[in-house]
């Protein structure tokens, strides 16, 4: 069983030979591996493809995540984005001031300007030996980004109709980007729904606004490819809803108790997570990584259905030896 097969086996509900290891090594961290600055790679998909390929080769985990600037909609439906130094790309201006702007939204053309070439390059480099995951914003996340998080969440009470209409208006973007990744040959999609976290909005609002559009998009994409739903920070109160979206796996973050999550939804979906990217991988030592990996596999590894991962993107300043340790101990403790 190679890395890709191991990863896909879990998403198909089958038993792998060991727990697959797919940490979220994306544009935050990967450029460092090839000695490049983040801003080089955020602005240049070829650089990021090279970085992600090199990082996988170096640490030999089971899957690479195409994310952050690499892909069909780096400017988020036309929002001006600022890239400086090692900062992540920032959307510095939102483009939806109100209902009248919904018509002005320009859906991304994923294949224009060679934007998908780096993704194809990453898929070619993987050559079926390890998995490649494409990262897509959910309709809810797109909507929050183009409206601006504050205005968007203020609208929940001020103008809930606008929230629903905006989410509906941007849903084609999620679908277009998802389908472009599928056409480029990725093995799975990660639908990112970070703002739907129960650390930010109530479970009731999740069910009212984020869940319906997320479920529609995921169910449709899942007809073609396995989908992983990512919601960071606390997602425990909405875990059962997330499991009803049609996702094959849920990517959960460190605040969620893995054993409780496994018990709540383990019979229905796989879980991917949830080593703390900051306190363990960035700031902990190798012993802390080992303890966290052992505990995570102990809590969720039994009977399959588990992919070992960081709970969220690994920060730039994380020591390389901690990522190496994550993989090493994942193998040590993850054998079935």
């Amino acid at each position, binding site marked *: 069983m190679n890395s890709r097969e191991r990863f896909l086996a879990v998403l198909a509900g089958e038993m792998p030979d060991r727990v697959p290891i797919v940490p979220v090594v994306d544009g935050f961290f990967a450029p460092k591996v090839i000695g490049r600055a983040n801003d080089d790679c955020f602005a240049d998909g070829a650089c990021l493809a090279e970085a992600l390929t090199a990082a996988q080769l170096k640490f030999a985990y089971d899957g690479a995540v195409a994310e952050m600037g690499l892909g069909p909609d780096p400017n988020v439906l036309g929002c001006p984005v*600022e890239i*400086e*130094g090692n*900062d992540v790309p*920032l*959307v*510095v201006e939102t483009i939806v001031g109100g209902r009248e702007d919904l018509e002005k939204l320009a859906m991304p053309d994923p294949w224009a300007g060679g934007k998908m070439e780096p993704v194809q390059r990453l898929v070619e480099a993987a050559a079926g030996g390890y998995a490649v995951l494409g990262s897509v914003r959910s309709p809810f996340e797109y909507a929050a980004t183009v409206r601006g*998080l*504050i205005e968007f*969440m*203020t609208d*929940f*009470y*001020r103008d809930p109709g606008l929230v629903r209409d905006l989410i509906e208006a941007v849903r084609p973007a999620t679908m277009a980007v998802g389908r472009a990744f599928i056409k480029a040959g990725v093995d799975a999609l990660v639908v990112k729904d970070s703002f739907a976290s*129960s650390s*930010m*909005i*109530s479970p009731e*609002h999740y069910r009212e606004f984020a869940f319906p559009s997320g479920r529609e998009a995921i169910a449709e994409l899942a007809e073609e490819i396995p989908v992983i739903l990512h919601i960071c920070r606390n997602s425990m109160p909405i875990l059962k809803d997330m499991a009803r979206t049609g996702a094959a796996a849920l990517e959960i973050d460190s605040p969620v108790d893995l054993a409780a999550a496994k018990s709540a939804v383990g019979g229905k979906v796989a879980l991917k997570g949830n080593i703390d990217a900051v306190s363990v991988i960035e700031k902990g030592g190798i012993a802390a990584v080992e303890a966290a990996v052992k505990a995570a596999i102990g809590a969720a590894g039994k009977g399959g259905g588990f992919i070992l991962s960081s709970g969220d993107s690994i*920060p*730039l*300043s994380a020591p390389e030896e901690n990522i190496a340790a994550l993989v090493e101990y994942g193998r040590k403790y993850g054998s079935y």
Partner: protein
Amino acid sequence: MEEILEKFETALIAGNADASADLADAIVAAGQATADEIFAHLSNAMEEVGSRYQTGEYFIPEMLRSAEAVEKAMAVLEPYLFESRHEQAGVVVMGTVRGDIHNIGKNIIVSALRAAGYEVHDLGVNVSTEKFVNKVRETGAGLLLLSAFTTSTKPALLDVMAALEAEGLRGSVKVVSGGASHSEKFAREVGVDGFATDVKSTLAVCRRLTGRDGDRR
């Protein structure tokens, strides 16, 4: 009067913007409430909202709803409070540091500080070091509040501190860094005079640094 003020506080906590503005009108029309009384109720409301967020009863949209209610009420109350507001507290420059676009926490703090009587110059998000320094110089602010959602913004905070020093402003302004992940250790490393993680601790540290410890609560 106390009954109107209690209702006003309740409306702010519930995030009922229309009722908050109507009650603010009633407060102004009656003309009996002192600035101290109004600020006390505004502060109580914001602290209660912050506390409900921390206990998981409120989430970000509920905090924003209350922030909007405060904003609408302040638009009515500001002319009424203007003179005493300046006498009571200090001048604050606040913004979210370069590389960070989180403004939820900052906006809540701005509302709370205004409610508590500070004159706040809000520079927005992703604010450059130069903008912070220029505004501190221009306003003669005694407090500079640097909002930073995560500790990964440490270089941006250090840059502001170095620039204040280089421009000879460090002696005249107290600096507070704030964000959910801030700690005493982090504050020490950055060299700020205080840190805060929520509305309550921000109001407390500002009171301490402006020598107003004895003020209400």
